[in-house]
């Protein structure tokens, strides 16, 4: 399964909900597939899920999506324990797990640096061990199972952890990957404004 396929399935169920993507290829892939204003792209390694957890806790009536890579989720592993502790029903974490640091500078076709997910770390198992209900933790590796998992995630209470096993066909390195057309400052302002429009908080400038 390719990253693009997972992102396109996510686009179908998103319904404009706020989303934060981790660093790397997923950001440009989502931008290309369907940009929505409530999106922060390229969050720093290890923090996309934590920031989404904060949104989810603050705005329980709003579904929130984190799109992480396996490398970023491993860097922010403690957040899985906090999700297990607080269990927000409106949080969906999609981990695009290709087992490599796929988009770093200096990597190119045929060159990969592996994450711990390639050496025995099973993120779905970690999530369950952190107290996230096992029935809400799904590992998928086909389009049809991913589609089914996403459907459940938007129709049943979470928190949801979907570990989508993807290939490394787009591990082409930083120089050639697609990039979002908004910068990190603009996109955070856009997400904040979208949340205000939906009734969550006051505008930053009254």
């Amino acid at each position, binding site marked *: 399964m390719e990253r693009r396929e997972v992102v396109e399935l996510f686009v179908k169920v998103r319904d404009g909900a*706020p989303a934060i993507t981790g660093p790397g290829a997923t950001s440009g892939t989502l931008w290309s597939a369907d940009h929505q204003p409530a999106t*922060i792209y390229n*969050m*720093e*390694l290890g*923090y996309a899920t*934590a*920031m*989404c*957890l*904060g*949104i*989810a*806790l*603050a*705005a329980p009536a*709003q579904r929130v999506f984190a799109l992480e890579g396996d490398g970023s989720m491993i860097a*922010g592993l*403690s*957040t899985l*324990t*906090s999700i297990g*502790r*607080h269990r927000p029903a409106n949080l969906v974490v999609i981990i695009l797990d290709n087992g490599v640091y796929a988009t770093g500078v200096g990597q190119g076709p045929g060159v990969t640096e592996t994450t711990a997910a390639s050496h025995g770390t099973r993120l779905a198992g970690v999530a369950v061990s952190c107290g996230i209900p096992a029935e809400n933790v799904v590992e998928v590796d086909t389009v049809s199972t991913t589609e089914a998992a996403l459907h459940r995630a938007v129709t049943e209470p979470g928190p949801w952890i979907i570990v989508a096993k993807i290939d490394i066909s787009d591990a082409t390195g930083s120089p050639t990957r697609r990039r979002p057309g908004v910068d*990190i*400052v603009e*996109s*955070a*302002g856009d*997400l*904040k404004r979208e*949340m*205000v429009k939906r*009734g*969550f*908080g*006051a505008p*930053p400038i009254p």
Partner: protein
Amino acid sequence: MAASTMGSGLPVVEGPPAPQGAVELYLGLKAGGVDFAVYLPDGTLPPVERLVRADPEIQTVQCAREDEGIAMAAGAYLGGKMPAALMEGSGLGYAGLILARIQLQRTPVLLIASRNRVLDEPFDYHGATRKTGEGVLRGLDIPYLVVTDPSQLRVIVEKAALTVWGQRSCVGLFIPNYVIHGQ
């Protein structure tokens, strides 16, 4: 255990009475409009955290690491809250990257950190903590104060919070142990 603040107008908390410094800090958070608090317990701030946790108007969550907690607090701002993060100063050492990011994208958090470089630090094992807290904020040009006078705590916290929301910038307050727990 007895409820310690019943009848005082403060939230009812279990355990020993909150020291006056904790009460002042809590009242400053309230006056500054803080309605979301994320914290990781340390040796100085738990009396404040107990008050905040007992206040139904402040959504209070515990994190597992301080940098994660700051990211959660920034998310809470995006979700419509006015967040504070309470921690030991050592946690700011973990948090350089996420603080830089939220400063850039103007997603502000009020930072309340125990320990500081100068005052009331008798233990050698807090040496690294002393260096990293103020060092990180100075390096990122995040404004901060070391609160030295307990009688000023309430107004300083309130006014710092107003700067956070108005300027959409993090502001840090370092709280020496004696400011919460007395001499």
